[in-house]
């Protein structure tokens, strides 16, 4: 199963942390450790993180429980999945791609700031792909339609509760939510980088 999904940026600031099984140390140290190992790796290297320090850190279990860290980097973000032996290594790589493409569909040209300001929305999208550490759906169309349905429902529910509000609150395509973002940060586009 998938034990955790972590997104952090190139300076190690977490943008999403999801742990499907209890971990034995604080989430912060785990994120920092993985970040410090990934950050020193150059672009051409493989997407599997394997280091002597890591084996001790994740806790060396028996062969079947051996955890593997699979990651992909897109522009300013690293997407990290920690999985065990019942997930296919290459399959997880593809799953990360599916996740990123789903984000891209939901946010239309997703960038780091979308993840920063809509971290709840990112969680909802992830919940359409992985539930409780098991893969729920891998078909992009399916995921997209479920995400839209749920977002629509949240919007309606919000609108009926706050008839006077103007588009604040949950909803996909959230640029329409009109956040006055300092656009200077809007640089790295996540689309399609490293698609295999």
């Amino acid at each position, binding site marked *: *199963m998938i034990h955790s999904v972590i997104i952090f940026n190139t300076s190690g600031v*977490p943008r*999403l*942390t*999801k742990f*499907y099984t*209890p971990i034995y140390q*604080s*989430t*912060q140290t785990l994120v920092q450790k993985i970040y410090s190992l990934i950050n020193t*790796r150059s672009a*051409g*290297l*493989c*997407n*599997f*993180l*394997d*280091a*002597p*320090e890591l084996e001790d850190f994740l806790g060396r279990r028996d062969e*079947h429980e051996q955890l593997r860290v699979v990651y992909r980097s897109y522009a300013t973000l690293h997407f990290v999945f920690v999985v065990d*032996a*019942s997930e*296919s*290594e*290459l*399959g997880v*790589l593809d799953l990360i791609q599916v996740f990123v493409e789903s984000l891209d569909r939901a946010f239309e040209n997703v960038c780091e700031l979308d993840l*920063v*300001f809509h*971290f*709840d929305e990112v*969680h*909802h999208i992830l919940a359409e792909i992985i*539930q*409780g*550490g*098991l*893969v*729920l*759906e*891998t*078909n992009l169309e*399916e995921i997209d339609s*479920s995400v839209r*349905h*749920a977002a629509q*429902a*949240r*919007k*309606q*529910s*919000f609108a009926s*509760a*706050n008839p006077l509000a103007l588009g*604040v*609150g*949950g909803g996909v395509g959230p640029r329409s939510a009109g*956040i006055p973002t300092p656009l200077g940060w809007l640089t790295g586009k996540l689309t399609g980088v490293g698609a295999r």
Partner: protein
Amino acid sequence: MWERTLQDLIRGLRANKKDEAKFIAQAVDEIRKEIRSKDMELKAGAILKLTYLDMLGYDMSWASFNVVEVMSSPKYHLKSVGYLAASQSFGPDTDVLMLTTNLLKKDLVSNPGDIAISLNGLSHFVSPDLARDLSHDLVAMLNHSRPHIRKRAVIAVYKALVKYPDATAFALTRMKEKLDDPDQGVVSATINVLCELVRRNPQDYLPLAPQLFRLLTTSSNNWMLIKLIKLFGFLSPYEPRLVRKLQPPITELISTTPAISLLYECVHTCIVGGMLQMHSGNSLAEMCVTKLAAFLQDPDQNLKYIALLALVKIVPSHPHLVAKYQDVIMTSVNDQDISIRMRALDLITAMVTPDNLQSIAQQLLSHLVRPDPSTALPSATQSLANVTSPSSVISPLSPSQSSAYRLTLSQRIVEICSQDTYANVADFQWYLSVLVDLSYVANVDIGKEIRDQLVDVVSRVRAVRRWAVELMIRLLSDDTFLRNAREEGSCAEVLWAAAWIVGENSSEISEPHKLLQYLLQPQISTLAPETIAVYLQASVKLFGVWAAGLSKQWDNDDLPKVKDIVETIIGCMREFAASADIEVQERAANALQLFSFVRADINSFRPRTDSIIAIDGGFETSMEDPIYPKSLLLVNPLFSLYELNPVNLAAQNNVPVPEGLDLDAWIVPPPRDTFLEPASVAVDDDLLLKKGKSKGKGKAKAKEGKAAKNSSRRGGERVVLTSSETPETPEQRAEREQQRLARLERQREDPYYIGDKTPSRPDQDDIDSIPVVHLDDMPPLPAANSAASPHFSSLLRESTTHISAEPVVVDRDGEMPEGAVLLPPLPPSQKPSRPITPLSNGASAHAPPAFPEYVIEDEVPRTGTPEPIKVVRAKKKSTPGAKKKRTRPAELEGLQ
């Protein structure tokens, strides 16, 4: 009041980067206020902000009750906030979980949106209690009309089963139906779930195989196929027929699928599922290895990585197929990517055979050599310069610099050489050189392992001792090594081994006194106390050997030299006798007393000149009076009386209890305390049982013990258990005598038995048939102290035979006490890293055996071994489990 939304909080965080802690403290204060508000919108907003802060590492467990409040909101957008917060922050010990049962029950029959988020949330925080109470509701959801809910329900049911396995039987029948669900997503989710279930418990799911097999042959969804293939990889080791059935479709998938991930998974399943062990498995194995080797050479690093991962698993069954690609694999150890290096190291370790060990170990060793000679340990770099193959050009950013990696690499080198008690090592001179080189170049904290290896090899392999002494003398005389001893990663523990080996084998050295200057130089005070203690002890041993040698060819001109050396030793010992470390202090004090005596004797010694002899004419000097100071012979016998042998792990357990020693007798009878009665009876019982076993008396004995115990219990008063030993019958005595004779016979035949003059007979052991390879390209040893080095070879005594011409004998079992029978070798996992117990003061200093020494060799037929005495354990249940395990039949044999 204008409350902050999540967006405001995030923006504030970005604006207050400098004073984040203060800003967050303020924000949390606001949240605490908002969270108590009656307004659900405000409360949910606060919870959402808190969830965000939770990601940044701030505690939100204090708000768990409020999270439940938000979860129970009827409004969908608020409910989803509540469930998100719950799935992020609730753990197994969150106490408010029990409040959610009814809420979840209600949500599970609500509209599809609510059902979806509650199923999702439940999958994260389900507890055993929730799983028990909700399992029926969850299983009911498996038949929901919407596929989206059905697939969520499949996973939620699985999560509940993990926490509450009692529901498995009833949930599983419904779950199996989902394999035929019209929606592909639901089938796919079911396969995912089954994959997890099968992995835990493969046998239970074998009946599902036909259904799964049908899916395998009909489906075209790669995601699902990957999982199915994985699933069969877990299943097929338990059902040989399945292997036969799976082979055609998997072979076809391997040759046709364009998806690399699916191809890899097929290859992987072939390997782990035991499909290559079949009669037609060889061609399949070849195909798998060819595919993997193609991955190895692929420019895509990911493929390289997973290929190494799969090759590790194929090595045990088909080593020859993998061996073809050794060169490619070796280059992967040189990869710039540490992930790939780690896997390649794993693979290389698995591939080691006696033939390739030396080249592999040398190549690994060359990775440890620093390319930059300016950084520490120049002698090592020089010495290894010619070992380094020209191909290994290491870039400055190479992972070889990371100390964790260097440690792993060093451990691997030791591991591949020492596995199965040096099964792969043909040339021990080479191995010792590798160990010494490693201590120079490792630059990580691996000294302890090297020390243990050096001591172990020297104790087990008699033939290599001479060479070891020569090596160790070089180490001891290397000033650079000593100077760096304080630094981290200097492997100073190796000096412990060096001093011990030199001391123990000092008879190999022709001029031992010359070494004393290294062992007693003032700089050694920088070493670790335990090393100093060994140094001191070794110098006493060296003196003993030297003095004994001197006495044989005494020349009165030697007297000043002896005096000089004794003074030096005393001076040094006096200093260390004031050491803060108790071990050093005691060694030094012992030596000090010993040498004070030697000094007194030497000072009072009056050399006899020929003229004196002529004058006295044997009048005052008796003929037995030696012409040299008698104290020269004082020290050596203290250390050299008994030969040093490796001791078998089980030796201590097999030491027979001496006759007349009653282990059950009280030394001080316990007070008559009626309250303690039951407890002490139990102890007696235990003791008796243990004794019964170790003595091998069997049932009768155990019964006796039981009777004794019963009587003590019946009597209600303290019965002091006296020896239940039955007197030795004449038959037993005769048998014992016979055993002794047989043993002596064996020892006579044993070529390695000490002090035996009979010519050795040819060995049948295959270890000895291994030819000893003399390596021409062996690295020269570090010779930092070049001034001293020319003497080394001359320091050793003349040897009659060339060392490498002797067959290498590894004493794998170690010494056992008299009459003990060899135990089956322990599984490697149980072997401690130091199977033998080297003691710094040598074997002679402890437990002088009261019985003749006895060396067990594998090839000796044990004709004299008595029939094992059958022991029927009369009272199994009273024996603690750990003890039961340790008692093996072999231990019971022949101890009478």
